[in-house]
């Protein structure tokens, strides 16, 4: 089992910015997502681990071995940057095999392994294409293939979806988690996009002003952070300060019960919900619902919305002068709806009220899907 550990890692920059001291551990079954605003030091963390930057203090341990002073090229770390940085003077195939040692390249079975990885990533048909003819998604996949073919011990990713259009981003996010899970290498992904956290993370930590402020598994983060009814709860006080961006969306996890003709029914707790798209029956899905998409009513009314969830209001938080977030508990999960203050007044909504939360089947967005074989 490979384990990456940072011990008191620090880096000081001219101008006063200091990163760290950072302490964290990531094992080979884990994808850690570091979220933080621009300038918080996220990329610096990756540059330090990869060896592109030298730390001023602390150590980087892989499998208990200190690699802090090992040169970049000998660390066996895969690192994808914000842009795919494919070499424009090489074709796709030449890019992919760039990092393979000649000795291994000459071996007969290397081609089988290369082809199998390319097929996995869906880039087999691209191998003889030139780089400038590729789409953003294809470039990112080729970049991934180039990185994974070297059989890295550690995987680092810097904003892997930053340059992709929304639909490619949605598709690649789901694929990427599958691919990374198959690698069984400790993985750190940095991002400032909330959706990336839901799509990729096993655990999450926040970085702000060079300081690692919070670390937790995605599940416990969702449970303890957003819906604590008591404002004095320690988690609810800490979390908004460090993960402000994660406060927006509703994230649910469920199991696909039925998927037919582009409509999928999944079960979360004992509630059945519907979403668009086809997914494997039995697979586990992670779903995002924008709070703006949830309509509230005090009575059960017939509408075109396919999803109606009976909930109880637990608290209100002002979003801005005219808008309020309504936090609700339903069955075994929580929901947030974003409505105007006027709508709240019209409905005479109060803490403890029973409401019906409604949203269309087109509203939930599947950000991760994990088949049974992946556990």
């Amino acid at each position, binding site marked *: 089992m490979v384990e990456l550990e940072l011990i008191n890692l620090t880096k000081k920059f001219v101008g006063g910015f200091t990163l760290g001291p950072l302490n964290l551990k990531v094992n080979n079954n884990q994808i850690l997502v570091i979220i933080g605003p621009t300038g918080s030091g996220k990329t610096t963390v990756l540059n330090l681990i990869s*060896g*592109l930057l030298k730390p001023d203090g602390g150590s980087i341990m892989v499998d208990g071995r200190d690699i802090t002073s090992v040169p*970049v*090229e000998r660390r066996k770390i*895969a*690192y994808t940057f914000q842009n795919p*940085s494919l*070499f*424009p003077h090489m074709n796709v195939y030449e890019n992919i095999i760039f990092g393979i040692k000649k000795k291994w390249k000459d071996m007969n079975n290397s081609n089988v392994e290369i082809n199998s990885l390319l097929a996995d990533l869906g880039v087999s048909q691209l191998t003889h294409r030139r780089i400038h003819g590729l789409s953003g998604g294809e470039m990112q996949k080729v970049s991934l293939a180039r990185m994974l073919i070297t059989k890295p011990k550690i995987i680092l990713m810097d904003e892997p979806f930053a340059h992709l259009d929304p639909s490619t981003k949605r598709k690649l996010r789901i694929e990427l988690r599958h691919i990374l899970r198959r690698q069984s290498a400790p993985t750190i992904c940095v991002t400032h996009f909330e959706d990336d956290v839901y799509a990729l993370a096993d655990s999450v930590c926040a970085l702000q002003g060079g300081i690692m402020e919070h670390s937790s598994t995605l599940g416990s983060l969702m449970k303890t952070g957003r819906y604590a009814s008591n404002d004095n709860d320690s988690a609810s006080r800490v979390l908004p300060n460090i993960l402000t961006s994660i406060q927006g969306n509703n994230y649910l996890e469920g199991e696909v019960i039925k998927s037919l003709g582009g409509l999928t029914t999944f079960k979360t707790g004992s509630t059945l919900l519907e979403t668009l798209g086809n997914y494997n029956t039995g697979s586990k899905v992670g779903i995002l619902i924008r709070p703006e998409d949830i309509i509230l009513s005090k009575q059960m009314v017939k509408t075109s919305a396919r999803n109606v969830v009976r909930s109880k209001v637990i608290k209100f938080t002002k979003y801005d002068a005219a808008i309020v977030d309504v936090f609700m508990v339903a069955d075994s999960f929580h929901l947030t709806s974003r409505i105007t203050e006027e709508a709240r007044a019209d409905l005479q909504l109060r803490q403890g009220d029973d409401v019906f939360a409604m949203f269309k089947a087109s509203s939930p967005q599947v950000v991760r899907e994990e088949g049974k074989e992946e556990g």
Partner: protein
Amino acid sequence: MIMNKRLQGFNITIIVLSGIALAYIAYPLVTLLVFVEPTMLPHGILRPQLTNALILSLFSATISTLILSLFGVPLSYFLARFKNFPGKFILRVIVIVPLVLPPLASGALLLGVFGPYSPIVKAFPTVEFTQSVLGIIIAQTYVASPFMILASQAAFESVDESYENIARVLGKTRFETFFKVSLPMAKTGIVIGLILSWVRAIGELGATMMMAYNPHTISIQIFEDNAIGGLRNAVPDIILAIVLSLIVVFVFYIMRRQRQDALRIQW
């Protein structure tokens, strides 16, 4: 309507001024035709003095360019990549000196280094540093160096450092990264630098005259033929030089176009 008239006025101004500039550049070439004697031209071009001068110029300029590629490319990479060190500004100024200095002054400075009483000559008494092919190469290399270094520096600067970082992360040493990534990606810009410095070396006169009037390069041959018999006497030399220039210009534009294409596909 008013906008259209203004636009027309602008276009006319640009066209007229461009026409004057073009006429100024092209007219001397036209006057050359007045002095051409077609029956004498083949004989003039095939004169041994001229063919020898041309061969010498091609040889010396090529050697100068090779020397520049060996030492100039690493220096340009150094200037492009090593950004924060004390004295970088002074280094940049030094690199430009041969470009801004009058060529005769460059020649005089070189004579100070390679002239009869210099320490280098005393150290290598059997080597003829002046009035020799070596002297020509020294002068041409010095004067052409900024073209090579500045063009290559710009080419390396246009290559995003992330490509080099990726190569390092993928297991390549610094040398491998330089030869497999930096150099190929900057190749077209470097080749443009090589062409420019080669052309500059071919056309070099002032510093070469100071270092080695003999043997004659094509530039010195043109200078001498014109001095002896006026333009009519120098016409075959000039026509040869024009043909050579046109070939180089053609290659230069093809390379520049390739470079623009290469830059377009970088993220």
